[in-house]
């Protein structure tokens, strides 16, 4: 069985539609991960020891267990126990967002810890209120240098969105699977799905690497 160009072109529009869903989930999931990760990182620095410890355990737990099982958990366990019924797509965004928030929280933490002590001392000496220390002094210095690391996690997330086919999200791989099952021909759909991933994620990773060098030069 060789390569059939006419079949490849017939399934391509479907795959591109799927790619759009994949990108959509990745963008929304990233936004959740960026926001929730920052919240987790700040809670982790809380002066309430129990809270900080709980956040640490949550982060370790999320990072040590498979995303696929977390997706199943959100999709099958949450609705009956809480009454919240989420669509597969929203479940996917939440699952990816929370999973990657565990990783981004560590990125933010490292970024915050890299802000020199003198900055904190100066802010204290100036008698700045605590929220202005964060918003005006620490975060503006910490956030730019974590951008490349956040970008890397977005790329990872992009490559993990196909897991959502397990709950019926029509991403690029699920489209390929459907097209393949319909014609019982998997060579073209899966090969093209793989190439589409490469087409998006390789330029993205080159971009992130360039960003990394730029940030590295500034500090």
């Amino acid at each position, binding site marked *: 069985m060789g390569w059939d160009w006419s079949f490849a072109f017939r399934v391509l529009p479907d795959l591109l539609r799927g790619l759009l869903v994949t990108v959509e989930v990745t963008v929304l999931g990233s936004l959740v991960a960026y926001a929730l990760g920052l919240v987790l990182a700040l809670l982790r620095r809380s002066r309430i020891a129990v809270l900080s410890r709980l956040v640490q355990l949550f982060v370790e737990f999320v990072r040590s267990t498979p995303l696929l099982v977390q997706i199943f958990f959100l999709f099958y366990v949450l609705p009956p126990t809480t009454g919240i019924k989420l669509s597969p797509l929203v479940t996917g965004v939440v699952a990816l967002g929370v999973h990657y928030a565990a990783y981004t929280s*560590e990125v933010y933490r490292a970024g915050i810890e890299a802000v020199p002590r003198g900055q904190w001392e100066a802010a204290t000496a100036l008698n700045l209120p605590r929220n202005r220390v964060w918003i005006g002094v620490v975060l503006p210095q910490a956030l730019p240098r974590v951008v490349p690391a956040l970008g890397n996690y977005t790329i990872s997330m992009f490559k993990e969105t196909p897991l959502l086919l397990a709950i019926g999200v029509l991403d690029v791989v699920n489209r390929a699977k459907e097209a393949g099952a319909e014609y019982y021909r998997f*060579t073209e759909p899966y090969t093209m799905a793989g190439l589409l991933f490469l087409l998006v994620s390789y330029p993205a990773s080159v971009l992130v690497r360039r960003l990394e060098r730029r940030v590295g030069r500034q500090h």
Partner: protein
Amino acid sequence: MFESFGYIVSTLVKGVPPTMEATAGGIALTIVLSFITGPALLSRSRAVRVVSRVYVEGLRGTSEVVQLFWLYFVLPALVGLQLVPLYAGVLVLGLNHGAYGAEIVRGAVQSVPRAQYEAATALGFTPAQRMWRVILPQAVVEMLPPFNNLFIQLLKSTALLSFITVPEIANQGELLRANFGSQLTTIYVIELVLYLLLALAITFVMRALERIASKRVGRRPPDRARLLGHAAPGSA
């Protein structure tokens, strides 16, 4: 109620050996590929560098799910070779994480100070001796923490093998879901706990190796108490 609880636990625990086999096989293949491809990325030969770079970028640039489906569904159609699900899984886990591992090895080898190379050359070591007796023992200490994270990623990836019907933990859970719709919380919580325990076991072993490796090159061993709490965020 309690009878079904016992049944759920025993069914899920049956998934542990296949998960462990896939993890162990994947880790073994990852180590082999990392130590071949990592130094190859730094080779003096342009051809070797290009081939290893294509492998690393190709495997890191595509989704693991696609790689799995490709190997399991497309390869048989192309070359007529149908792999047993577990072997296909081990192969994909190893090939994929080997690409990440190659970068870990490359980074660690590059982080060994230049003077170590010069000293080894001055003492008349051959390039092979220099690599195996001087550079790698120092580089390995740097590699162990990121490899710990990588192996945990690999363990987590074994759940994907449920897509190709390997009877591992996640697949066992999906079998139960059909008949125990009222106890989904129990099923998934037990699954998560099993994975957490396996991840802790990996970290435990890797921390022990870290202590041995750092002692061997005369560095202070890392803190014993920090079993929870990785040094760096995951690499994959």
